[in-house]
């Protein structure tokens, strides 16, 4: 999975996206805040939702407690 490394750690792009979600937003907000291409943000956020690091409600992404814990670990 592109958002979690082989040792269970966050990848650099995942870390940037989670940091950008300090304020919840849509994928375009995350792309703008991180400078990552929108396609990559969409793919990354989808993987992080599946991993339980991010949640999606009515089109708005926000970090879960698990995501925050990994970010500060």
């Amino acid at each position, binding site marked *: *999975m*592109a958002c979690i490394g082989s040792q269970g750690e966050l990848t650099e792009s995942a870390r940037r996206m989670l940091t950008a979600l300090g304020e919840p937003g849509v994928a375009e907000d995350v792309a703008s805040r991180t400078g990552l*291409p*929108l396609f*990559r943000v969409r*793919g990354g956020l989808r*993987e992080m939702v599946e991993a339980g690091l991010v949640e999606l409600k009515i089109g708005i992404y926000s970090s879960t407690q698990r995501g925050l814990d990994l970010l500060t670990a």
Partner: protein
Amino acid sequence: MSNHVESTTQAPSLGVTEPRVEASLPRLGMAAPAFEAVTTHGKLRLEDFRGNWLVLFSHPADFTPVCTTEFLAFAAIAPELRERGVELLGLSIDSPTSHIAWVLNIKEKFGIDIPFPIIADSNKEVATLYGMVMPGESKTETSRCVFVIDPVGTMRAMIYYPLTTGRNTDEIVRLIDALQTTDKHGVATPANWKPGEKVIVPPPGTMEEVEARLKAGFECKDWYFCVKSL
């Protein structure tokens, strides 16, 4: 997957009927076939590119010379394409590990970063969906195909080159410019058109349009052949 035609085929030795998925070529003006694929930038779907233009292109194999020159050429036009709202997405029937090793090798030998993702289509799923394998050339490799998909997911252009012949990436940029000009101004573009040159006013469909066009001040050779500057 709407572009699939599902049929059944008789397995001659066993006498059993098994489902078979046949691919048909994508069609211009139709929705590009949806996919989800493993890439060098993680798992991506076609829908992840919505809102941007996408140039999806296939190459026969990693670590081959013509393909390497093409990747260098695609990397060179990536900034120009990005300025035009276009993303690149490569594909071959190779593993993610092979793609990563090749990208690292290109960096080491040529000093060039490959900035776009590459689909590792080991099971030929996307290649089959898009008709990228030309059995007359090779049954195990994708030919040099280019698919231009617009921001709403419509197939707008397709180019096919044989295994032996590297693509002209300037033509891909020119094609994007022409398509975007058509969308923005409702015009067509003549042979060998480049940005800044005159464009074709679409032919009139009614007598009323013919009369209106003659008064519009276009540069016309005849009623059906008019050009204008933008």
